[in-house]
């Protein structure tokens, strides 16, 4: 690859021939965090405390300290996050090969199905049907499940709890196995709070997307936004997590590159 290619890339950005789409939710204390039973350890929500704001604590500068979990807001899941991936090589945020943070993406539109059924499960048949229209999913690419869930700006609707727990869409166990074994994907991304469905605790195995993806050394992205602005194929996403030593994941900025102009 020549330097010219990179120059062409930069020029394409400058000329607007590549559109950059922000696929990230804003980190805010109001954004909900994952809910676990209260007796378990909990992921911190995003919190922010002023250090100084041009005042007696620091006369000319404004800055904050923030705190959050590795799995707060739009975030990346590393294989070490799940017990199935705990012994894999290069399984944490500091050791994952950086070239994996830039890859092609396939966007499977499940927005109508998810609107009709918040417990919608993405199946192998649904994926094969998508492939009939858009071609086979290329190996080492991201599969992003578009549900338009990120458009639920009311946190109650986003979380969608009732007394039986959370109701959000995700993949079923066979679909995940298919993506890993038959399509060799790089990872799976979703718009809801997890890559797995809200009721995935009741699937076999529980949380199949976490279990199989991370067990195979693949990655997860969740709380993505603006997936409706990506084409079904042909986009590239950039998603490097923070380089946390032995990190299981990290909040991050996710960018989508879309051919345009």
């Amino acid at each position, binding site marked *: 690859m020549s330097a010219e290619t990179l120059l062409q890339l930069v020029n394409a950005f400058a000329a607007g021939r590549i559109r950059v789409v922000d696929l990230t939710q804003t980190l805010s*204390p*109001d954004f*909900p965090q994952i*809910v676990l039973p209260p*007796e378990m*350890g*909990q992921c911190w*929500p995003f*919190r*922010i*405390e*002023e250090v100084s704001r041009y005042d007696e604590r620091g006369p000319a500068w404004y800055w904050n300290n923030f705190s959050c979990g590795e799995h707060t807001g739009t975030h990346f899941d590393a294989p070490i996050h799940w017990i199935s991936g705990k012994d894999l090589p290069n399984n944490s945020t500091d050791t994952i090969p950086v070239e994996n943070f830039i890859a092609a993406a396939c966007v499977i539109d499940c927005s109508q199905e998810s609107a009709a059924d918040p417990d919608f499960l993405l199946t192998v048949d649904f994926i094969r049907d998508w492939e009939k229209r858009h071609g086979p999913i290329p190996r080492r690419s991201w599969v992003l499940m578009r549900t338009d869930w990120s458009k639920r700006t009311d*946190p*109650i609707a*986003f*979380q*969608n*709890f*009732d*007394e039986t727990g959370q109701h959000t869409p995700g993949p079923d166990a066979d679909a995940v196995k298919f993506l890993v074994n038959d399509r060799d994907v790089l990872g799976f991304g979703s718009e809801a709070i997890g890559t797995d469905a809200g009721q995935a605790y009741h699937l076999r195995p529980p949380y199949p997307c976490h279990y199989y993806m991370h067990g195979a050394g693949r990655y997860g992205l969740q709380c993505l936004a603006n997936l409706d602005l990506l084409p079904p194929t042909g986009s590239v996403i950039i998603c490097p997590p923070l380089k946390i030593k032995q990190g299981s994941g990290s909040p991050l900025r996710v960018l989508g590159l879309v051919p345009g102009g």
Partner: protein
Amino acid sequence: MTAPLLRPKRKNPVLRTRLPTLPPAIRSRVALGLTAAAARGSFELQVCRDCATVQYPPREACCACLSDRLDWRVQNGAGELISETLLRHSQELFFRERVPWRLGMVRLDCGPTVIAYLHGDCPAAPARMRIRACLDRAGQAVLVALPEKETPNMADDRQLREMTCDPKFRKVLVTDGKTAAGQAVVEAVAAAGADLIWVGHAEPWKKLPGFDRLKAIPQVALLPLDVTNSRSVKEIAGEIGGRVDILINTADHHRNFGIASRHGVETARAEMETNYLALLRLAQEFAPAMRARGADGQSSAVAWVNLLSIFALSNFPPHGTYSASKAAALSLAQCLRAEMRASGVRVVNVFPGPIDDEWNQQLLPPKLAPAALAAAIVKALQDGIEDVYPGDVAQEWLARWRDNPKALERELAAGAG
């Protein structure tokens, strides 16, 4: 008979809000014994261990035999009004703004004669009275003579209301309405005649039992308040802070771990976040406006209530990190009390024993019903009590702690909760 309190007219916004003034606050160290008892709602006088004389005012030695072996003992306060007077002028700003002020001399059945504020329903001397020690706006004990029997609308007496923090016609913020205790407090202050009750609720996506019931209470206004989120506290304080007359901080994070029974610090940190840092956040954002409104007419800012725990006094090892967070909160509440003092806004600390909720499931009864806790909080506000130990367990632990804190530490370490 006392004229019943009426809903106050709306404030005239062109008039300056009156600044708080305090009654004389200086007391000798020994006189603070009266205050310590009044803070718990008790009337105690010094009793000589050698000659059994009951004396008032408090002194270093017995007024009859000069013994210094004096014990503070609970008195029933029964006595006879022998004379009265009406204060019509005072150089003290507090009284200058409140004259005429009714005073009397009451000869207690236990011996001494005391000077007391006279409730408006007290008949002319001679008449039977009961004396109560109340905390005044300066936080010091004063004696109040009440009619022997309850009279209608007794709590609405003008002078008595200067000692109490009655929720009637006041605007109340309950910081967390999602817990069983929080819900019970909302219902109790509504029944006590609060004008408006803001009810904070965090994480609105978590539906918890009983919460929807609060929406049916006419005075209730729900607020998205998360006390672990500084921005949320600031925002809500900006919105309603200037109108809160009574703040009741019911936010509580309770887990059942000691040191060895839980890895890491996450649970302890969450407890500190809600039980300690949240109090600091609330105090920084809400206290300034409340301090400024300590004398804002009939429905002035009047009280700040902290839901602590009897475990704040001495660590209960099975709930060890929780106890530590409540001890931190108690210490901060003392700081808040000192900072609120000049405004006359009372800081009320509540020290319940185990509440009958899911986090005390495995503790044996007696456990405090949330409704009983709420009733104790309202009563403390109505009676002007500052330190509240509701329920049998709290009372028993308090007695053991006052008697010998080291003994209680050893007993709790041995599992004798």
